[in-house]
């Protein structure tokens, strides 16, 4: 990848809060390259450092050490008002004393653009988020979803090189959130602007992103396309944070792994090392079969589209299988019954730790 394709980059960024022994590393040596025009998501639980990284890029915080580069230029010491980067805030942070159109035009006005251009761009941006009719309203007269759109239009109006979105959908109800997810993706495609999106919602990350950076404890755990992250998690954290999964302790034996029950599981992508490892397999990749690993049915929960069956292996390991419902919704399962299970080919991953 050439340097010119990278929109924003963090190099060994460290951010420590507090002094001396009490210092907390919110960001611990984070390096990440975000490509031009991509929808990049920083995903992680609260307190993982994702918002801190976003604030470093915006310029609201300066790193304890390390660099932030925009288009290959070091912008680490540039104040936020001189960075061609705009933010959509979690709280929207709309100016209550200005109308919707004035809010949207604020950035351009501060850049000293002529009045006609400011008004024209504000109108165009409001059309982009479908709020032309609200241009002269006060922001307090808008609903949460509409305020969200104004915040988006306001951040997009100055045509930033990178748009930062700090959990912008978390305050919306489920239905509105789904609509805005589609809307955001559409805006990103239409404007071609690089989006850096922060969320703790794994589904949001999977459905919207070109690439995801999963963060935990101030470090980036894994960067990759949604499919890679879901199907080939590198460690236990990533595997459990994104979707549901089963963990199985095992010992490596060549191209296979021996479970605690003594059963052998074939690996499509065996690691070179040996010893004890943890295997992971998604519930939807576990099937009940005539033969295979013996298990007892502990319980099940009916979810409509599928049924989650909790199984106990011989060595006590718990495995959850997600079985697609049949037309009648009946599972034909009995509690305590002996069954056998198999894993779909290629579904078993060896975790790195």
């Amino acid at each position, binding site marked *: 990848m050439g340097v010119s394709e990278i929109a924003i980059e963090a190099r060994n960024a460290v951010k420590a809060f507090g002094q001396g022994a009490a210092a907390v590393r919110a960001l611990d040596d984070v390096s990440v390259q975000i490509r031009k025009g991509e929808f990049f998501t920083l995903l992680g639980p609260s307190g993982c450092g994702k918002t801190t990284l976003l604030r470093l890029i915006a310029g609201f915080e300066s790193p304890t050490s390390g660099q932030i580069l925009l288009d290959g230029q070091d912008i680490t010491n540039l104040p936020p008002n001189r960075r061609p980067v705009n933010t959509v*805030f979690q709280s929207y942070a709309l100016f209550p004393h200005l109308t919707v159109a004035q809010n949207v035009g604020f950035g351009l006005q501060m850049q000293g653009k002529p009045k006609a251009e400011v008004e024209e761009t504000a109108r165009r941006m409001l059309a982009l988020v479908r709020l032309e009719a609200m241009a002269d309203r006060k922001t307090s007269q808008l609903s949460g979803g509409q305020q969200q759109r104004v915040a988006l239009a306001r951040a997009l109006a100055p045509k930033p090189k990178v748009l930062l979105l700090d959990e912008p959908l978390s305050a919306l109800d489920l239905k509105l959130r789904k609509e805005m997810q589609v809307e955001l993706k559409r805006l990103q495609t239409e404007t071609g602007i690089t989006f850096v999106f922060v969320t703790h919602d794994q589904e949001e990350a999977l459905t919207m992103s070109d690439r995801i950076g999963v963060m935990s404890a101030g470090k980036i755990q894994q960067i990759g396309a949604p499919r890679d992250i879901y199907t080939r998690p590198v460690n236990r954290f990533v595997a459990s944070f994104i979707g549901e999964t089963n963990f199985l302790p095992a010992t490596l034996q060549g191209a296979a792994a021996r479970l605690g029950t003594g059963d052998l599981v074939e690996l499509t992508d065996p690691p070179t090392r040996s010893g004890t490892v943890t295997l992971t397999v998604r519930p939807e990749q576990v099937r009940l079969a005539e033969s295979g690993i013996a298990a007892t049915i502990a319980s099940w929960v009916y979810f409509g589209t599928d049924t989650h069956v909790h199984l106990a292996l011989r060595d006590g390991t718990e495995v959850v299988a997600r079985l697609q419902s049949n037309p009648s919704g009946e599972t034909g399962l009995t509690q305590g019954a002996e069954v056998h299970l198999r894993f779909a080919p290629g579904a078993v991953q060896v975790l790195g730790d």
Partner: protein
Amino acid sequence: MSLEDDARARNVRSAWALSAPALLILLLAAAGPLLIVAVYSFLSPGKYGNVEWVFSLDGWRGILFTKDIFDDTLKLADAHLTIFWRSVKLSLLTTGITFLVGFPTAWFIATRPPRARAFWLFLITIPFWTNLLIRTFAINEVIRNEGLFNTVMIKLGLFDTPLRIINTDAAVLMGMTYVYLPLMVLPLFAAIDRFDMRLLEAGYDLYASRWQVLRRVILPIVKPGIIAGSILVFVPSLGAYVTPRVLGGGKNMMIGNFIELQFGQGRNWPLGAALSMTLLIVVMAALLIYVRAANKGGNGHG
């Protein structure tokens, strides 16, 4: 009449009954004296003070004009105009200076952690618990020719002769700024306390410099606090009596002292009453214009 209407009527009756004591006090203590002052302004002065019950417009005429001692022709009273002008000028300056000093102070307090905030607010309000006269004499003690400031400056060899501050407009200004500062800080604090600090980041993010954030984001939003503080400082400044008396000496009178003079040595109660009414009307008119203009400015901004 339905049961509901009946209950409502009873509520209204009891509400009136409950507020009756307050209304009575307002009537007797505010409206009553005001009425007396209004009536007095249209009467003739008595020889030894008080009034004679003879209708006369001399009180009102005396605000701007004086009768020549020899030929009874009316002349514009320069001395009065000087006093009015000084009052307005010093009051506006006091309002301006308390704002310039009070805004950073209020901002500082509002951005402290809640516990420290209470402490700082307490410090700001301490002067309120002290008698105005004592506070004014304290200022006098600091700035008079043999006072703290001049003694220290001369001892340090910075001045040869004491700097004359006392009995000047500057001394009055200093005193009023000190006395009325809390009245500016408190409403500003209340407004800044409600201000959403996240808007600062939004401003910086949208290319506004620190100065632009102050002018385009902070000031318009805390404007109600600025208006309230300005009114609370300007109105009592205009009618100030103790401060110009103690710090301005006899000569640098403001309207308050001038009015007192009419009821005292001047023995011209109708003129004093007319001056009081004028002050009241001017303040009301100024407030009305100010509030109107301030509100209009808020909507058409951009």
